[in-house]
Structures are given as structure tokens and as C-alpha cells.
């Protein structure tokens, strides 16, 4: 019967689905991208509904027992105007444990981004991204090769998509999904009892042999990366989300931290907008906020509160603080008042102006 032919064809088509593993690994980045597009209006209203924050606990502050909490201040006004919260030493910075890294990468690429998320569905995740070019602003566009390290994965072998080509990664069974002309290839394997590694490409064609070579060069890495900015205060029910460090050089580091209302803490009425409440805090050398805005003073520094009037910018609140010496802190909030945004800015723990953590040297490569 023709229905049977249709069903058979549909099953074959379903087998062409991209690996769920690849989709899952890209999800935090997609969520962040959706939020950025919402904030900056790149795609305008079409993406307006997609603003979301991966509202989960930051997984990566290693050495948790030995690292003091961020400079939590009970009330914002208690900070001395004009004085940044200054860690007294490197020990007060949060740290990201790198865990794994490649000994070889295709020529022309250098590490430009480290992003940590608590992916939730499949444990914690850290993504290291190698690019050909890195700028001072939003780091995600352009060709890249990423190594995603997912830890605390329950039954990791079961999470692998096995529809691709079976390959050997130093004795481990890996699965390779080649690019189909779209610059997206993926290679995933289990690296430990609770760890899944995946190398994926975006917007670049890398030959399979090079991806395999890179994968086979991956080994344990004991390095740590500093988190130079920490949030000292968030509204009730909010949690810190993803952490991204990038930049064209160590001295020009860009740090972004996102936070949002915890899904668990959401009140959950049918038409609640609480779930989309989020904030992005970026400290870098440039801002992507709109120009102008009401002049304010935050942390004793000049600040401004630009307002978007276009449809895509409706509901977004911006606060830009000039930290001095070319450093700018940009807060973009949704579902949050300017007062709360200001309080987050006032109580964020920042390093001294001009401070460059020694372990950001990877940005200079």
C-alpha cells in the first residue's frame, strides 16, 4: 500500500536526523544567541519570544570550598562611591576547571572562548572554542571549532547518538557525523564513567582526518581559568547561569555572566512572564547597548540608561557603567527594574581596573 511506502520513507528520513547529541551540545549557545538577538535586535521581533536564560547553577566554580563567596554586600549603598569591589588576591576569584584539552588543533585556529553552563539535561558542560579571529565584542559569530566537555552525565554511552560513522578515539568508541555542506560536523565519545566529549564545527569545513586527529589528541588538562567578575546580589529566586570568557587578548578580556529566575522558583501562573526574567552582565572594552540614555551615577562612576523604542527592544532594560580606563560594564535585563539592575551593578565583584588574571594567557595565543 502507498501508506506503507510513505511510512518506510518517513522512517528513512527520520534516520537522517542530526545527532541529538550535537543538538543538545549547541542548546546553551542557541539560548544565549536568542537572548543576544533579543537584546541587540539583530533579528528583531521575529526572535522576540525566544529570549531565555539557561537558569541553572554555574557548575564551574571549582575549589568551591577554598574560594570565598563573591563580595556579597547586604545593601547597595554600603559600597563606597567610586571604589570598585577589589579582590585582595587571585584566591578570591572564581575558577573554571578545564578538565580536558587537545594537544593539536587545525592550523589557523586559536582558543577564543570558554563558556561554562550547567546544561541540566545531561550534566554540567564546559565549551572551549577555537576561532580564526576574535574581537572585543560578542564572540560567537564566524567559523569555529568547539570542544564540549560534559561531566556528571548519567549513563554517558546512552546519550551518544550512534547514527553516524563509528570511529576509534584512542580505544574509545566514537561517533562521527560529517558536515553536509553546512559547515557543521560533530564527533562525540565517552571519556570517562560520567564524561562525554564532543568536537563540533560551526561555519567551517574541516576535513574528517583533522577532526579525528584533534579528537585523538585530547587528554586531561588540569588548567584553571579565572572568573574575574562575580555577581554579589540577585533578586530572590534568581540563579547565576552561564559564564563566558572571551576576548582578542588577555588584557582585553570580555566576561559575560547570565542569570535568571530559577524554573523551580517560578510561581508558574499561566500567563506569568517570570520565566523570561533574565539579566546579562558583560564587562569588556566595548558595549553593544544602544547609544545615549539618561545619565546616572553607579558605583560612583558615570553611567547611562539607554532606552530602546523599537518593538524588539520592548521590555528590555539597559544600564551601561563606564568603569574607567576603557572598561565598560553593560547590564541588559528583561523582566527586571532599573533599580534591581542598578543593585546588581553596584554589588558585582570586579577586579581592579587594569587587572589581568595570569591564567587568561590562552587568549593571547
Amino acid at each position, binding site marked *: 500500500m502507498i501508506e506503507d511506502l510513505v511510512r*518506510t520513507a518517513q522512517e528513512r528520513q527520520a534516520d537522517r536526523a542530526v545527532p541529538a547529541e*550535537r*543538538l543538545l551540545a549547541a542548546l546553551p549557545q*542557541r539560548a544565549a544567541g*536568542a537572548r543576544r538577538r533579543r537584546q541587540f535586535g539583530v533579528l528583531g521581533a521575529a526572535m522576540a519570544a525566544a529570549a*531565555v536564560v539557561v537558569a541553572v547553577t554555574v557548575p564551574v566554580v571549582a575549589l568551591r570550598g577554598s574560594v570565598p563567596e563573591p563580595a556579597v554586600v547586604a545593601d547597595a549603598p554600603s559600597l563606597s562611591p567610586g571604589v570598585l569591589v577589589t579582590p585582595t588576591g587571585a584566591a578570591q576569584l572564581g575558577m573554571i576547571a578545564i578538565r580536558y584539552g587537545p594537544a593539536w588543533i587545525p592550523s589557523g585556529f586559536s582558543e577564543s572562548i570558554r563558556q561554562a553552563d550547567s546544561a541540566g539535561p545531561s550534566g554540567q558542560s564546559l565549551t572551549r572554542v577555537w576561532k580564526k579571529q576574535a574581537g572585543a565584542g560578542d564572540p560567537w559569530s564566524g567559523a569555529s571549532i568547539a570542544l564540549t566537555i560534559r561531566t556528571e552525565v548519567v549513563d554517558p554511552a546512552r546519550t551518544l547518538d550512534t547514527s553516524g560513522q563509528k570511529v576509534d578515539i584512542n580505544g574509545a568508541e566514537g561517533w562521527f557525523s560529517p558536515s553536509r555542506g553546512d559547515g557543521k560536523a560533530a564527533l562525540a565519545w565517552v571519556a570517562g564513567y560520567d564524561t562525554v566529549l564532543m568536537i563540533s564545527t560551526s561555519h567551517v569545513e574541516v576535513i574528517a582526518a583533522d577532526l579525528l586527529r584533534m579528537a585523538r589528541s585530547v587528554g586531561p588538562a588540569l588548567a584553571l581559568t579565572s572568573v574575574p567578575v562575580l555577581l554579589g546580589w540577585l533578586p530572590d529566586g534568581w540563579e547565576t547561569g552561564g559564564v563566558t570568557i572571551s576576548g582578542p587578548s588577555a588584557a582585553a578580556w570580555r566576561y559575560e555572566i547570565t542569570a535568571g529566575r530559577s524554573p523551580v522558583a517560578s510561581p508558574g501562573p499561566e500567563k506569568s512572564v517570570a520565566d523570561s526574567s533574565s539579566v546579562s552582565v558583560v564587562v569588556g572594552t566595548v558595549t553593544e547597548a544602544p547609544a545615549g540614555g539618561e545619565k546616572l551615577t553607579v558605583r560612583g562612576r558615570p553611567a547611562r540608561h539607554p532606552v530602546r523604542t523599537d518593538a524588539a527592544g520592548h521590555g528590555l532594560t539597559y544600564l551601561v557603567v563606564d568603569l574607567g580606563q576603557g572598561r565598560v560594564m553593560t547590564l541588559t535585563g528583561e523582566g527586571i527594574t532599573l533599580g534591581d539592575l542598578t543593585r546588581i551593578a553596584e554589588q558585582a565583584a570586579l577586579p581592579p581596573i587594569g587587572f589581568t588574571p595570569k591564567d587568561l594567557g590562552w587568549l593571547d595565543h
Partner: protein
Amino acid sequence: MTFEEFVSTRLGNLVRYATVVTWDAHLAEDITQNVLVRAQARWSRIGRMDAPELYVKRMVVNEFLSWRRRRAAQSIPVTAETLDGFLPATRDLAADHDERDAMLRLIATLPPRQRAVIALRFYEDLAVEQIAEMLGCRTVTVRTHLARALATLQGALPATLVTAEELPR
């Protein structure tokens, strides 16, 4: 069911479903990701539903049809004569394989809404009434899409593949 539980247990099925609905693995990837990002933001509501997976699948098909509306130019009407060009004139030694390939190519030429309907009917095994509810249309509309899709496929397939009793009633 939490969002994390949903994703960890249902993502594979969801992306396969999206691939059948869209008939394009990479579009399915994009649409699934977009839908999951939106679904996560609303999960406090979706997670309390009796059938959250059905709701997310509805989001996928609606996203696909919206996407198609935004890019209507990509829907190219194709005549049966044109479709003949996709098919071998006679069966060859690899006939069975070719027949399956022919069906794959033919389904790709169906209008998006017809393709979505046959995905829901034959891949998801949903009843016509359920499909109508999912697409927000009348059951007669679903039956029309279904009949037209099958007639198109049947008319374009080599006669050796379709017997007389299979003609749509």
C-alpha cells in the same frame, strides 16, 4: 516532568519527528533548537500539561509552517509531469531501492502543510481529529490535505508500485 527530564528522554524522538515534518535535517535542527529554547522559558506551564511532548511537537510543526510562510517562495508547485523526471522510466535491477528513493524525493515535493499532515498521520499515527486540533484547522481540511498528498504521491509513482485497490476513495 522537568524540562531536563523531557530533553534527556525525548530529544532523540523530537529531532527525528522534526526531520520527518520538515523533510530537511538541518532545518529540523534549527527548528528543534528554537522550539526548545522557547519551551524552556515556558516550561513551568508546559511541564504541567498532560502531554507536554505533544505540545512541543505542536510547537515544532507550527514553527515549521510559520517558517515556511516566512519563506513562501521556497514552496514550488510541481506538476505530475515534472515529478516523472525524478523517477526511472522502467524498473531496474535495484528497483526496490529506487522505489524507496523515489518516495523520499516525492514527499520532498509536497506542499509543506500536506507534508506535515502525512507526517502526523503516518509517522506519528495521529487520528485526523488530533491532527486538526494540532494544526488548528477543521477535520475536513486535514482529510483534504491527506487525500491530495496521497493522490499526488500515487500519481507520480510508477504504476508498478501502486495497485488499483490503493487508489484513494
